[in-house]
């Protein structure tokens, strides 16, 4: 196991750069606590995060205006940042045939009512997970390509190594994941 004395620089540096990465991606507040463990002798590198609450779900009415149309409902997007997520969600629910993109900001959903669409919510949890995985990818030592991931709503643990993943490391990851779920926010 890497002694914190021997590798104190690495411990401090990884801690600093992970905080900076989270800040850069705008998700610092979504990670309540994190733990980085590594053993260069074995070698493995582990990072575990206790996830905070994702932003509350975003409703379609918060980012677009809905109007009834002869064929269904027309949507005028007011916050373009959400456009790709909204389009993906509409495609999933109504299929590509029923969703027509008229212009950059205007969509037409055939056969859908305004009430039905105004209840639609986008899931920011997915977006958060993508950003956290990006942060982990940026932090992880580049050569440690063999990875094992554990994730649930409360915590996410990723362990990586250079060659074969050993069962004892996966056990360690499971243990840390459990500890992380009940960890106090830092």
């Amino acid at each position: 196991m890497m002694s914190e004395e021997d590798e104190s620089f690495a411990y401090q540096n990884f801690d600093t750069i992970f905080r900076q990465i989270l800040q850069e991606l705008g998700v610092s507040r979504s990670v309540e606590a994190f733990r980085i463990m590594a053993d260069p002798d074995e070698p493995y590198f582990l990072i575990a995060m206790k996830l905070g609450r994702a932003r509350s779900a975003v409703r379609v009415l918060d980012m677009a205006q809905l109007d009834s149309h002869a064929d269904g409902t027309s949507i005028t997007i007011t916050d373009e940042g959400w456009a790709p997520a909204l389009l993906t969600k509409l495609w999933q629910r109504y299929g590509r045939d029923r969703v027509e993109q008229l212009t950059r900001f205007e969509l037409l959903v055939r056969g859908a009512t305004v009430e039905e669409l105004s209840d639609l919510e986008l899931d920011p949890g997915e977006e958060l997970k993508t950003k956290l995985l990006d942060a982990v990818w940026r932090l992880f030592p580049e050569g440690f390509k063999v990875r094992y991931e554990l994730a649930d709503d409360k915590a996410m643990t990723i362990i990586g190594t250079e060659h074969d993943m050993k069962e004892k490391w996966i056990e360690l990851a499971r243990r840390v994941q459990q500890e992380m779920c009940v960890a106090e926010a830092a």
Partner: protein
Amino acid sequence: MYEVLMYDGGVYKVNELYELVEDVGGFVIQKTQIQVQIMVTMAIPEEERPAIEAKTRELGGKIVNVPLAGTEIAVVAPTLGRHHMPHPTCDIAEQLRRLGAITVVMGLARGKGRRTAQINADEKAVIEEYDAAVFVLGNFKDCIVEHKVRLFEDIQVPVAAVCGPQIPSLPNCEALVCGVGRKVERMRREEEIARLDEVSEAMERVIKARRKELEEDPLFVHPAEVKDRISELEAVQRSLRPAPVVLHLDGLRVKIPYQEWKDQIAAVEVYGHRLGDIATLSDSRLGGSTLIKIKTRSEVEAQDGKAGAK
């Protein structure tokens, strides 16, 4: 002995400076003009420095010491991934550029990892084309001491290693700077700037030692003198690359294709000799460039002696 200096000032009457440099037997190495400001790197005989300083004062400019001028240095990262780029690799390269060096940033194809980190013969040969190399390593002491040191063993040019943890010494390198490690932001804090200064000081020491080594058996001509002649070649004048002729401590890199221009370059006359006779010309591993290694005075004399005997 030539001294390399940089004039930093306005373009007004800068021609007078060029004339003075020529009159004292010096050379202009590089001119970088930004609107009405100009930076001129020049090599002048050491004893003529007061004259150049006086002219600089007269023109309202200033003289900047550029201890690394006339060198080309490779800054090598284990890969070009965002784990090493742009910080700190590019920050170090920029620091060396500020002291006059021409730098290139290189990433190895398979330098990442621990036991998997490796460097191939081609990469070593490319690094050896430069005057010196800086290897920018990471955070884990064990990883650097046990594995990464292999990346720069057998490299024939001086190497400075930069890493994160405090390590008393490393084999295979001439200088070691600790306390840098991985960065995701520009190195702009006070302690980070101090580390960058340490890197450039280490590189200055390495280059100084190499210069001293070369002085023991001096080159037949200073590379700046050869540059002056080579710059007259039509192909060089037509070259659109930012610095078509780059000085090395013991030669030059001319950024025109070797195969096409080797005969013309060899035919350039320097102090009554063909350049081909007083230097070794070769193709650069980086496409489209020619490397010139100037022979030492004793080598040329021995060569002349043999030719005379025949």
